[in-house]
């Protein structure tokens, strides 16, 4: 489960017939193997178009897209798609097939033996937080969140080196969304595939991505960088406006106390205590709330690891 592919967009342009403005305009991006790349931007930014060009649901007019150095035009389209996991917002489970058969769709197309497909389905259902027994149920019997878990399992079934996700959590309630976001991050660490993830939600982009590509209207790439670099140095006023005026706080949310250097703590320090996994944003919030200029940081066993000062937070930005 460690195959991952490098994706290169090389001056790709797509114009829909009869439209003046390009959907995607001269897009160049290198997505390293194993990266979690989020395409984000307002509607009309061409992010879904860019995504669908990778599995050729949408053709491109100019430029090229390469997977591990190979142009996707040189790969028969059906073969290409079977090598790419595809997850969409409406999920698109086959209502007439059981969950097990849904998950086993691509392995079946690839001619895997039945026994292996069954085992693989059961394994994936557990990986995405469902039970092997759910394989016998039909999509209509599941909740929206469960269905999207199946959608994810189905996309992972044939162990593709690349996963395309088009606003996969857009239709879910906030609690389910947060849970699935967290699990997708964990899953990404476990299976180590390249992921291209489309969202219009900058918070989701910052939370999920190793890299974020911000597209503006007309399909122009505004900035492509790590979340931290984008928040620290927005390329222009469009990006600055898109990521919001609270970008300093958003940046702090990306880091946890275990990632920063702490000051030695006095043994009798009575400042509020927090765990190592607290984000800097929450730490600052707590200091403002308790009117304290510092926090005592402790590990899971309650051992004091050091002190974090409010001024240290400012210095980290």
């Amino acid at each position, binding site marked *: 489960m460690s195959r991952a592919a490098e994706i290169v967009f090389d001056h790709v342009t797509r114009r829909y017939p009869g439209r003046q403005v390009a959907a995607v305009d001269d897009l160049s991006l290198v997505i390293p193997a194993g990266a979690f790349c989020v395409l984000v931007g307002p509607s009309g930014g061409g992010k879904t178009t860019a995504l669908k060009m990778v599995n050729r649901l949408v053709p491109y007019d100019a430029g090229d897209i390469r997977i591990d150095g190979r142009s996707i035009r040189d790969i028969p389209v059906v073969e290409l798609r079977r090598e790419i996991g595809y997850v*969409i917002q409406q999920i698109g489970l086959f209502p007439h097939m059981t969950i097990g058969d849904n998950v086993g769709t691509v392995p079946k197309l690839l001619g895997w033996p039945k026994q292996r497909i069954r085992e693989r389905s059961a394994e994936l259902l557990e990986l995405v937080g469902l039970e092997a027994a759910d394989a016998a149920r039909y999509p*209509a019997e599941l909740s929206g969140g469960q269905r999207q878990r199946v959608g994810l399992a189905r996309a992972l079934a044939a162990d593709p080196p690349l996963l395309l996700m088009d606003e996969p959590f857009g239709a879910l309630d906030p609690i389910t969304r947060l849970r699935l976001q967290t699990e997708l991050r964990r899953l990404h660490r476990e299976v180590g595939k390249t992921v291209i993830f489309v969202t219009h939600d900058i918070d989701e982009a910052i939370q999920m991505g190793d890299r974020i590509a911000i597209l503006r209207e007309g399909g122009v790439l505004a900035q492509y960088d790590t979340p931290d670099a984008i928040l620290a140095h927005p390329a222009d006023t469009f990006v600055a406006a898109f990521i919001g005026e609270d970008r300093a706080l958003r940046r702090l949310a990306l880091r946890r106390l275990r990632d920063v250097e702490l000051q030695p703590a006095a043994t009798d320090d009575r400042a509020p205590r927090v765990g190592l996994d607290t984000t800097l944003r929450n730490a600052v919030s707590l200091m403002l709330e308790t009117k304290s200029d510092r926090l005592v940081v402790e590990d899971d066993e309650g051992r004091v690891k050091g002190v974090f000062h409010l001024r240290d937070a400012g210095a980290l930005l």
Partner: protein
Amino acid sequence: MSGPGPVIPSFGQGSSCVTGDHLFCWDWVRQHWSDTLGPALVQHLELTFIAVAIGFALAFPLALLAHRFRLLEQPLGVVSALLYTIPSVALFQFLIPFTGLTTTTVEVALVAYTLVMLFPNIVAGLRSAPPDVLEAAHGMGLTSRQVLWSVELPLAVPAIIGGLRIAVVSTVAIATIAAFVLPKGLGYPIFLALKEPTPFKTEIYSAAFLAVALALCCDAVFVVLRRVLVPWARKGLA
């Protein structure tokens, strides 16, 4: 007690109920089950089954064509609807010079009438696959043929069964007109009874009742068939 009535062959050697042409005579039904009503019922079922089977064999490929080439849908739909508007007796008059007083004549008419119930339903069924399901199917690398056979067609099954159900039930009703051409089906006893100077009620009622019962039974068969073939629609989904 009414006196002996006119001697009519199909009355048989009747009881006073039969000779008096009362509302309904069970003894006549029992007596003529094996020589009149039973065979008529079997023939009726046969006429219906053959008509719907041939109708389906024609409508299904036409629907696949209309699904593939959307331009064909409207003309084919119009033709099937027009066929339905031709009065059956007129259609028989038109066909008899070619096919004579045969089962073929009857079946051509019945088949023509099934098309208007089968064709649009099959097309609608094939079109009923939700766009997101089709996008996912193509995105996963199913070929167009695989999408048709393993996604669109299974999802069309409820609509196809619905079409077959209407076609069978209405063909059971329409098939009584076969008696204009042939001594076959449940229409024939009715036809004979009506030919008498005083129509024999029991014969009409019993044949009509059998036609209704046959339609209801066929309907029930399709309800069961749907439950068996469409397990996924039982819970939640329509």
